[in-house]
């Protein structure tokens, strides 16, 4: 202790000199109180509050359209809901009856599209994230994904018509429509899956490799289990998009009306989105609450499909060990 106090730059001496410096820096303050706001501090605080409110307002503004849309649909479409609405076919030139075949048809389309795009998309994402080196091929693939994401849905529809309906001769069918939807949503699955995979810390991979695991063992035992919830997020996004798409299905597999429910993937089917488009724009004398009712059902369908995967996701996240 004696050693320390002898040195002018340690111990109490150091504390004293720090106090002096602090006092110097606020010497302009008439009350002699330390740490009060200067004019510059006040200006900074005002700016800070300004930006804080700006960002808050912007975020809240995002909620408004969602609430407005839902409110409108519930108020105007709610009266159309009844047991028959969900369980019967349209009758009397779409002015009576329900949407049951369209509901079933959309489920078919979504499920078959998922079966095609999720394995393909996840596999591509795994390749790009875990195996691909930065070379010309990888850059080409990335370019293709970006461009695929930018193709308008009507162009996908024409491609689907040419490729699946005519060239592969699937006819207008669930298979052709779902494959078209799958190609359209593939970029979403690939990009979101790849980002999720890359969010898994590199140190886990290093640890696995240094323990003698191959890349696949690393992916299988560590990377995938820790990214499955993020991959599901991509799938949820895809479901939402697939359910609502109209253009890609109207040329490839969806029809305005068919008296039969689809029995297999080579049948044509009704679909919610096309049904909504038609009764809202083409068919005369449809009661006004019916299109809103269909729109509300479409949104509810997305919510139901999503909440299943969200529930699964929450369950998986609970099991995560980091």
């Amino acid at each position, binding site marked *: 202790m004696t050693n320390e106090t002898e040195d002018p730059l340690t111990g109490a001496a150091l504390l004293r000199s720090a106090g002096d410096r602090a006092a110097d820096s606020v010497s302009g303050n008439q009350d002699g109180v330390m740490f009060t706001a200067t004019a510059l501090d006040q200006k900074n605080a005002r700016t800070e509050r300004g930006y804080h409110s700006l960002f808050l307002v912007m975020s809240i503004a995002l909620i408004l359209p969602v609430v407005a849309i839902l409110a409108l649909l519930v108020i105007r479409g709610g009266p159309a809901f009844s047991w028959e609405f969900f369980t019967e076919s349209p009758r009397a030139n779409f002015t009576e009856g329900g949407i049951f075949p369209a509901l079933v048809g959309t489920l078919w389309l979504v499920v078959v599209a998922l079966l095609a795009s999720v394995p393909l998309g996840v596999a591509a994402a795994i390749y790009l994230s875990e195996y691909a080196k930065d070379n010309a091929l990888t850059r080409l693939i990335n370019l293709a994904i970006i461009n695929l994401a930018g193709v308008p849905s009507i162009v996908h529809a024409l491609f689907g018509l040419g490729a699946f309906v005519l060239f592969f001769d699937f006819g207008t069918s669930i298979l052709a429509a779902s494959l078209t939807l799958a190609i359209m949503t593939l970029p979403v699955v690939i990009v979101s899956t790849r980002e999720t995979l890359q969010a898994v810390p590199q140190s886990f991979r290093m640890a696995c490799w240094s323990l003698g695991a*191959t890349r696949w063992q690393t992916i299988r*035992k560590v990377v995938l*289990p820790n990214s499955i919830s993020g991959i599901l997020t991509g799938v949820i996004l895809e479901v939402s998009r697939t359910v609502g798409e109209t253009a890609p299905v109207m040329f490839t597999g969806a029809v305005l009306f068919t008296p039969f429910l689809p029995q297999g993937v080579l049948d044509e089917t009704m679909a919610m989105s096309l049904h909504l488009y038609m009764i809202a724009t083409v068919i005369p004398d449809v009661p006004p609450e019916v299109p809103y009712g269909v729109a509300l059902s479409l949104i509810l369908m997305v919510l139901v499909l999503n909440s299943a995967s969200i529930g699964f996701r929450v369950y998986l996240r609970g099991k995560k060990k980091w």
Partner: protein
Amino acid sequence: MAESTQPHTVAVTPEAQAIVVDPSTAAIRVRQFNLWYGDFQALFNVDIDVTHGKVTSLIGPSGCGKSTLLRSINRINERLGYVRTTGNIELLGQNILTPGVELTPLRRAVGMVFQRPNPLPLSIRDNVLFAYRLSKGGKTTRAEEDQVLQKALEEVLLWDQVKDRLTRAATALSLEEQQKLCIARLLPVKPSVLLMDEPCSALDPKATLAVEELIWKLRGEYSILIVTHNMAQARRASDECIFMLMGEVVEHSATGEMFVTPKQQKTADYIEGRFG
């Protein structure tokens, strides 16, 4: 193991390379090893011998190539596509840079401990048994596993602390326990060499001491090559010391000698803290 019990010759010659290791006792022999990251040459004609059953520390300023050299010995550097090497690295007498060498068994023979403890996001049990299960192709019985698990955790002095929570997440352990676990998970596949890349730099002094004691305990059975920034650690916890500078080996001496009578001026400057 018979070799390591034989007395080996550490001939201290007045010339630059101070330690000449009898080939039969060298766990690792690196000869004329050069390494490039793209156009940048990180290692220049590196020659080192790591004695069987000893702790050898690699010291030198940041960026001198210590970690690069370490990572070349289990060939984990190759994950980066742009790495190119020339020269030889022999592990227990076999050149590991020849085309016939399979990486999986090599990595089992050369365990690696990282700077930041990196237990896998699995349970303690699954972490320790990870490499073991891979090496058996997934065909292990519960009884075997229990035995291997306990032996490995006892070897790293962790069994008593964790035996009641083996199914809990390994990432919930303290950093010291995590690092010990990372050492424990190497042991079931019976490596001959342990590479450690600054294994204590993320730990507090008490944990550092505990891990150092563990390293000291493991020597003999395993040959250990440890990269460290901590001069005091190199001095406390290694038998031999290799000083590197700018991608070259400057001096290789017994630790006691290097810190008392370094043979090279550069070594003396570094040890006394004049740079680095």
